[in-house]
C-alpha cells in the first residue's frame, strides 16, 4: 500500500510541480497592436477618459480626418491607465506599433530620452505658443518637441455646501486661514458626535495632493544640478510644506492614513467628509452611483480655488495628457495630421464643453468662471508637473512618494527622517534611463 501511495504521490507532485514552474515564468504583458493597421489604417491609442467623457470629440475628429483622407481607416483603441505603459512597452519592442499614443505628462520624459517618440514641428500645431507650460515642458528635450498637449486637469477644493451652511458659512474660504477656521467649525459641529466624520479628507498616500503643499512652500521634489538630478524633499522648504500638510491631517482627518485617493469619490459619497482636495470631476462622481457615490448628495458639492498656506493659490499638480508619435510608426505624417485636428482650437472648445481644461492659456479664459471648472482654470496657470528627469517614472512606479507620505502621516517617521530616506531612494534611480 505505501508503494501505491508513493506512486500516487509522485504523480500528483510532478503535475503540480510542472504547473508551478509554468506559472512562475508566465505572466508577461501580452497584447499586440492590431495587425490590420498595415493597410491604409491609422491606429490611435487613447485612454478611456476619451470614451467616457468626450466621445463626441473623437467622432468629430475622425469625421474631419475622413473628409481629407477618405481611404485611411482610423482605429481608436482605448487603454486603461494602469496597464497602458506595459502594453506600450511590449508594442514598442516589436515592429507593429500604434501611430499615436496618449501619455500622461509625468510619463513622457523617460520615453523621450530613450528614443521612443519622433520629434514634431511645434509651430504647425494650433495655439502651440500658448500651450500650458506644465504640459508642453513634458514634451521638450534638447530643443525639440516630442509630443502635443491634449488636455489638462487641475485639482481644486471641493466642499459640501449644505454642511458649511449648517455651521453658518455661505461662501467658500479665500485664504488658508479662513479655510482652517471653517474646518474647525465643521469639526466642532459634526466631529464631536460622529467619530467617523473628517472635516477634511486627506488620505496619507495621496502624493499629488501632498506635493502641492511642498510646491506652495517653495520646495521641489527633485532639482537638477550640473546635469544630475537630486531628490529635494528634505530641503527646508519641502519639509516646511510637508509639516503643514501633516498638521492638516492630524487636525481634521480621522480615516485610514495608509490609503491613497483611488476611492475618494466613494468615500466622500458616504457623507462623512466636509471638504476635500480633488479633481473637479470628483465633485460629480461623489454623487454618482456609477462611481460609488451617493445620489442623495447631488447638487450639494461646490468647488473653490484652493488657497495655499503661502497666501497664493495652492499650485496644483496639473495632471494632463499628451499625444506622441512612436518612432517606429510608418505613418508619421498622417499621425501628425490626426493630432493637429484632435487638438486644434475647435476641438479644445469641445473639451471645455465636456468640463475639461484646454491645453493652452488663451482658451483657459473661455472656461466659464461660474462653472464647475472655474476654480480649476484659475489654478491651472500655477500648475506644475513632476520633475522632468529620465528616471522620474521609475520613482513614481516604485512608490517612493506614497511610502514616504504614509510614514509621515502615520507618524512612523518624522518629516525630516522620511524625506531624507526618500531623497536617498530618489537619488538612486532618478538619473537612470
Amino acid at each position, binding site marked *: 500500500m505505501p508503494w*501505491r501511495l*508513493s506512486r500516487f504521490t509522485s504523480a500528483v507532485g510532478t503535475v503540480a*510541480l510542472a504547473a*508551478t514552474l509554468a506559472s*512562475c515564468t508566465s505572466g508577461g504583458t501580452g497584447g499586440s497592436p492590431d495587425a490590420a493597421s498595415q493597410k491604409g489604417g491609422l491606429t490611435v491609442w487613447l485612454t478611456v477618459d476619451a470614451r467616457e467623457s468626450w466621445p463626441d470629440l473623437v467622432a468629430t475628429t475622425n469625421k474631419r480626418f475622413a473628409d481629407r483622407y477618405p481611404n485611411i481607416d482610423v482605429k481608436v483603441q482605448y487603454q486603461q491607465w494602469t496597464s497602458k505603459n506595459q502594453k506600450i512597452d511590449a508594442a514598442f519592442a516589436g515592429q507593429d506599433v500604434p501611430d499615436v499614443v496618449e501619455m500622461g505628462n509625468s510619463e513622457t520624459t523617460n520615453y523621450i530620452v*530613450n528614443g521612443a517618440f519622433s520629434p514634431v514641428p511645434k509651430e504647425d500645431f494650433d495655439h502651440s505658443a500658448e500651450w500650458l507650460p506644465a504640459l508642453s515642458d513634458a514634451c521638450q528635450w534638447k530643443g525639440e518637441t516630442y509630443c502635443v498637449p491634449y488636455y489638462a486637469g487641475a485639482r481644486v477644493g471641493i466642499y459640501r455646501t449644505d454642511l458649511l451652511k449648517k455651521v453658518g458659512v455661505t461662501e467658500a474660504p479665500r485664504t488658508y486661514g479662513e479655510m482652517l477656521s471653517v474646518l474647525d467649525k465643521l469639526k466642532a459641529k459634526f466631529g464631536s458626535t460622529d467619530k467617523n466624520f473628517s472635516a477634511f479628507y486627506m488620505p496619507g498616500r495621496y502624493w499629488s495632493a501632498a506635493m502641492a503643499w511642498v510646491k506652495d512652500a517653495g520646495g521641489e521634489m527633485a532639482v537638477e544640478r550640473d546635469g544630475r538630478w537630486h531628490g529635494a524633499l528634505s530641503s527646508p522648504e519641502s519639509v516646511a510644506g510637508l509639516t503643514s500638510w501633516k498638521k492638516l491631517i492630524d487636525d481634521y482627518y480621522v480615516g*485610514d492614513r495608509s490609503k491613497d485617493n483611488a476611492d475618494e469619490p466613494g468615500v466622500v459619497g458616504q457623507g462623512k467628509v466636509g471638504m476635500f482636495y480633488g479633481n473637479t470631476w470628483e465633485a460629480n462622481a461623489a454623487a454618482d452611483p456609477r462611481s460609488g457615490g451617493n445620489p442623495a448628495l447631488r447638487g450639494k458639492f461646490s468647488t473653490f480655488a484652493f488657497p495655499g498656506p503661502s497666501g497664493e493659490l495652492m499650485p496644483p499638480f496639473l495632471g494632463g495628457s499628451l499625444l506622441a508619435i512612436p518612432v517606429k510608426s510608418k505613418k508619421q505624417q498622417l499621425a501628425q495630421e490626426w493630432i493637429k485636428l484632435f487638438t486644434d482650437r475647435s476641438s479644445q472648445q469641445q473639451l471645455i464643453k465636456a468640463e475639461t481644461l484646454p491645453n493652452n492659456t488663451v482658451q483657459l479664459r473661455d472656461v466659464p468662471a461660474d462653472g464647475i471648472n472655474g476654480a480649476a482654470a484659475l489654478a491651472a496657470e500655477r500648475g506644475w508637473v513632476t520633475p522632468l528627469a529620465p528616471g522620474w517614472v521609475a520613482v513614481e512606479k516604485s512608490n517612493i512618494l506614497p511610502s514616504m507620505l504614509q510614514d509621515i502621516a502615520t507618524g512612523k517617521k518624522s518629516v525630516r527622517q522620511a524625506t531624507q530616506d526618500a531623497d536617498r531612494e530618489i537619488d538612486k534611480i532618478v538619473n*537612470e534611463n
Partner: protein
Amino acid sequence: MVTAGPPRPSGAPSARPHPVRPPAGGRGSRAGRPPSAARRAVPYLLIAPTVLALLAVLGYPLVDLVTLSFQDMTRRELFAGTAPPWAGLQQYRAIAADPFFWEVVGRTALFTVACGVVTMTAAMLVALLMRRVSPWVRATMAGVLVAVWAMPVMVAASVFRWLVDADHGVVNWLLGRLPGADFAKHNWFENPWQGFTVIVAVVVWGALPFAAITLQAALTQVPPELEEAARVDGARPSQVFRHITFPVIKPAFVMVTTLTAIWNFGVFNQIWLMRTGQPEKDYYLLGVYSFIESFAVNRYSSGAAIAVVTVLLLLVGAVVYVRQLVRMGEAE
C-alpha cells in the same frame, strides 16, 4: 540522467569516426528476447509531447531570462531593438552587495516557513477530523474545501482586504467587541508583522484545501488494523499518530509540504492584491521585488538576476523534494 549512459573515456573527441555501439544486444539477451527498435521508441514517443511543450513554455523563457541577467538591458535597447551590452556578473554582484536584497531573501524564507508550518498543521488537523466525522459531514467539509479552492485569488484577497479595512472592516469591529480592546481605525498594514499575519492568513486559507484533501486521501491508506493493534497494545493516541499513522502518510506529507513551500516562496498575487498594487518596501518578497525592478523601475536585467536567484533557490527546494521521493521509493 547523464550517469545512465555508457561511461565515456575522458578527452575523447566528440565526433568519432564510428559511433559507439549501444550495448543493446547484451541487455536484450539478458531480458530473454531483444525488443524491437520501434518498441524501445514507444516511451520516448509518449513523453515527447510533454518534453517539447516544457521546452517551449519553460525552456525558452528560462534561457532568455538567464541571458538577460548577464546583460544590461534598458528601455533604449527595448525600443530600438538593438542587442543590450554584455554585463557579465555585474547584475549579480550588484544585488549580492545590496543589503536590501538579503533582507528580502530572509523575509521570503521566513514567510515560506511560517506559511508552511501553519498550512500543514491546520491541514493535518482538518484531515484527521475528516476521518472521525460522519460521512455527510465529511462530504460537506470536502465540498467547502473545494469551494475555497475554486475561489480566485483575486476575489479572496479583495475579501480579506475588506475584512481588515481600517475604517469599515468587520475584523476591527469584532475585535472591538472584546472587553478592553480598542480596534477602531486600527490599520493592520502599518506594522509589517501584523500585515504579514493577514497575508499569511490569505495564503494559508488558499493553500489549506489542497493540503487537507491530499492528506485526507493519504489517511484513507492507513490500515485500520495496524492502528487497532497499536491501541490494543496500549499506545496512547499521540503514540498511535507518531508511530503508525504518520509514517504511512509521510510521503504525501513531505510532498505537500515541499509543494506548499515552493508555491509560497514565489508568492506574488496575494501581496500585490492586498497592497493594491503598491506594496511598501516592508512587503517585498522575492517575486514582488523582481517584478518591481523589471517593470516599474525598468531595470530589466537586475530584475532578471533576482528572478534567476529565486529560481535557483526554488531548485534547491525541488532537489530536496525529488530526493525525498526517490529515497521513499527505494525504501519499499
